[in-house]
């Protein structure tokens, strides 16, 4: 029975499929088919501070201040700005701009959007928490008043997208999702920005279609020729690469390292690369009196700078670059990277050389001639080849007598160790959205820094870090930033490994500038 009827059903279905065949759309227009590992969870510009949400939103929403592909600040919805008083910034708004639904953009929307980003449920409030008041002067002028002078206010505003006040009120999304409402808010799957692309359809995790906004104010400045963007995330690495190789997508922004050669051997594809704004490093707990998982009891070996230097000397960064990163990394001597204010190339050049003999001597001097054991906490799904880097380091440290137990786990389990300050020795990566050293000082080098799992920090250094938050004079501020780095380079609370390199694989038909923050902006792209 099964034997006879099932093929018939199948045949019927196939037949039905052929009969109801839908028309194949003509692709005369330029369609950019894009894939990456995962979708933006929400389109609400203030509900989630994640790279992929910002990447999705930057296509549809604009900020007052924007960045060009070299990360230089350029006018966005504000055409000009000036600091009329150390605490007061005045912005002239672009005139004649309208939202995707046709509503005009004006000063009320700026006031509304910044207040929304400051809301209790907003995840972007870290960028706007220095703003005390947003004042509308006239329809196209606003003033932002800060409590103290804020030298990086403009850098922070790059990530604050402007929403339409009327639209938000009409759809009940005056504040971001708070999870207690038990239901979806309208802004999760809908948008009304002023940006280069409009949302045509949205099926989270499956397919998002954006279409060109003919009325975008930037169309004259940024002459892209993309009519439509079809974004289909593909979670599996091998499948993502297969989709590119088979010509089903035009752009992959996160191809796996090990597949680059295979992609390059295809004559229809190319790979663009650039140094990313993210440095990978090890951190030591330099504060606790005793390590949690170590053979050394009653004291903390990492408090001794000689031990930290020994670890540093024991790491062969060129071997990691060659064997683990397949040449795709830039060995680092400090934990920030070139475009960040405060970076100095000489510190990268002066990275301590690989010298296991010196490491052994240093360990003996510190009182550990036989070495000791310690646990290394490492994420396994956060950075490029993160677990492999840790495995390589375990082998290198074993050569100088350090017995490292590797605890590699997913980021959901790993990050609580960092923010909860419960790790002795860890791998971490750090990127800087504000392009200024002050950001990493606040989070990783101030004693109270929320991600400072090393516990590093001295009262003098804390005072300096707090001081630069309010110094507007560029030279004076940069001098202080340098002083802080000199101290940090000497103390080595973190062991710099490398700056990550990002690479985008794409069809040769596509031109799109690669950006160090790993966010493709489709309005820079052209297809032929």
């Amino acid at each position: 029975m099964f034997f006879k009827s099932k093929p018939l059903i199948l045949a019927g279905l196939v037949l039905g499929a052929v009969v109801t065949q839908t028309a194949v759309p003509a692709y005369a227009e330029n369609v950019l088919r894009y894939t990456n590992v995962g979708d933006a969870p929400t389109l609400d510009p203030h509900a989630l501070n994640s790279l992929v949400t910002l990447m999705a939103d930057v296509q549809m929403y604009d900020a007052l201040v924007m960045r060009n592909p070299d990360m230089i600040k350029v006018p966005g919805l504000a055409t000009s700005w000036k600091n009329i008083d150390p605490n007061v910034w005045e912005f002239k708004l672009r005139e004649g701009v309208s939202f995707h639904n046709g509503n005009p953009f004006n000063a009320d929307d700026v006031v509304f959007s910044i207040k929304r980003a400051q809301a209790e449920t907003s995840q972007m409030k870290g960028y706007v928490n220095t703003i005390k008041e947003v004042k509308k002067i006239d329809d196209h002028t606003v003033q932002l008043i800060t409590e103290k002078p804020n030298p990086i206010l403009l850098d922070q505003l790059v990530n604050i997208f402007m929403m339409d006040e009327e639209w938000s009120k009409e759809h009940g999304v005056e504040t971001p999702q708070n999870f207690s409402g038990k239901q979806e808010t309208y802004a999760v799957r809908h948008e009304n920005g002023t940006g280069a692309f409009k949302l045509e359809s949205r099926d989270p995790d499956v397919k998002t279609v954006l279409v060109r906004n003919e009325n975008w104010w930037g169309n004259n400045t940024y002459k892209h020729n993309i009519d439509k963007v079809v974004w289909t995330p593909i979670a599996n690495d091998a499948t993502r690469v297969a989709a590119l190789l088979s010509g089903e997508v035009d752009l992959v922004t996160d191809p796996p390292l090990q597949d680059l050669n295979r992609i390059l051997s295809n004559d229809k594809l190319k790979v663009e690369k650039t140094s990313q704004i993210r440095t990978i490093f090890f951190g030591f707990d330099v504060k606790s009196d005793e390590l949690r998982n170590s053979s050394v009891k009653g004291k903390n070996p990492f408090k001794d700078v000689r031990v930290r230097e020994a670890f540093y000397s024991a790491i062969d960064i060129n071997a990691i670059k060659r064997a683990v990163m397949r040449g795709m990394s830039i060995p680092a001597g400090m934990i920030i990277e070139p475009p960040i204010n405060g970076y100095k190339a000489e510190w990268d050049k002066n990275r301590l050389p690989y010298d296991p003999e010196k490491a052994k001597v240093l360990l003996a001097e510190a009182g550990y001639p036989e070495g000791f054991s310690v646990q290394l906490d490492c994420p396994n799904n956060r950075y490029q080849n993160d677990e492999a880097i840790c495995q390589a380091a375990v082998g290198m440290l074993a050569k100088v007598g350090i017995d490292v137990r590797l605890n590699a786990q997913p980021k959901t389990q790993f990050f609580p160790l960092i923010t909860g300050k419960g790790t002795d020795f860890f791998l971490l990566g750090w990127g800087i959205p504000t392009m200024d050293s002050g950001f990493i000082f606040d989070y990783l080098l101030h004693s109270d820094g929320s991600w400072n799992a090393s516990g590093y920090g001295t009262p003098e250094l804390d005072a300096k870090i707090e001081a630069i938050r309010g110094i507007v004079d560029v030279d004076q501020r940069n001098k202080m930033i340098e002083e802080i780095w000199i101290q940090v380079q000497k103390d080595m609370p973190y062991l710099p490994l490398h700056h990550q390199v990002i690479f985008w694989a794409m069809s040769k038909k596509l031109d799109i500038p690669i950006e160090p923050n790993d966010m493709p902006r489709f309005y820079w792209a052209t297809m032929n």
Partner: protein
Amino acid sequence: MVNFILNRILQSAIVMFVVALISFFLFNFVGDPISNMVGQETTVHDMNALRERLGLNDSVIVQFGRFILDALNGNFGISYRLQRPVDELISERMPATLELVFVSAVIAMVLGVAGGLFTGLKRDHWLSKIILTSSLVGVSLPTFIIGILLIYIFAVKFNWLPSFGRGEVVDLKGGWSTGLLTVSGWKAIILPSITLALYQTTLILRIIRSEMLEVMRTDFIKFARARGLKSRDINYGHALKNTLIPVITVAGLQIGSLIAFSIITETVFQWPGMGSLFIQAVQFADVPVMSAYLVLVAFFFVIINLIVDLLYFVVDPRLRSEIKN
């Protein structure tokens, strides 16, 4: 009969409750969703405020009680990752998974029964040997390797079939979206359904074959031959019917595991079903989605088992007469 069914439904409620309870204790090990929900700029104070708002500071028992109470009211909470109601997410993804499972089950049944009969009846035929040897591949290679292999052959090398996704879908009434009404939908389902069906095909093939060999040796077949019945009637009418009880048992259980294990196939082919939703929920520590999914899968298993039990009555006349007596 009615008692039997009611009994089973009561059992299913208990199974689902236990699955939910166990999974809630396991969720402690998937990590902290908060770090995925906030950026690195978030202060510890704000992280704690969010944790408090989500009720993650409560004990497991309190969280579990809240989940059960809400679930009884038809409220499965809101996904931490996608910020949408969980029941809505799952019901959107269910058609994709069920269609994939349906097509795979059909493939497995057709190929499994046909192959099993052939190899059982013509055990010395050269083709039987080829079928049996190659079917070993189906059980010995892991699903994701088979999937990747098919992608590289049919999508990358020959460009015949898509490597990912579900093709064009048509929305039907009642919230069901189907890919089985478009050409691209059929093209997209071929590779994943074969990948998913391979293991089950082998299993069914081998069971039918060994049952056939057994049955063909029994007296009633010999008598049937002696009576001069056509060998087609003997093979498909009498012999095949007697092999079906174990096949139904296995096939039923396998449909449950097709649903549960479509996770891997869905991930490899970026098939937008419940399995890939679940995998992403695990990576994000999206507790509301994980708990609802696990309870649902438990429910499927119980229901399928119930259907299997009922099918026994249809196939085996002895059971029917037992009930009467």
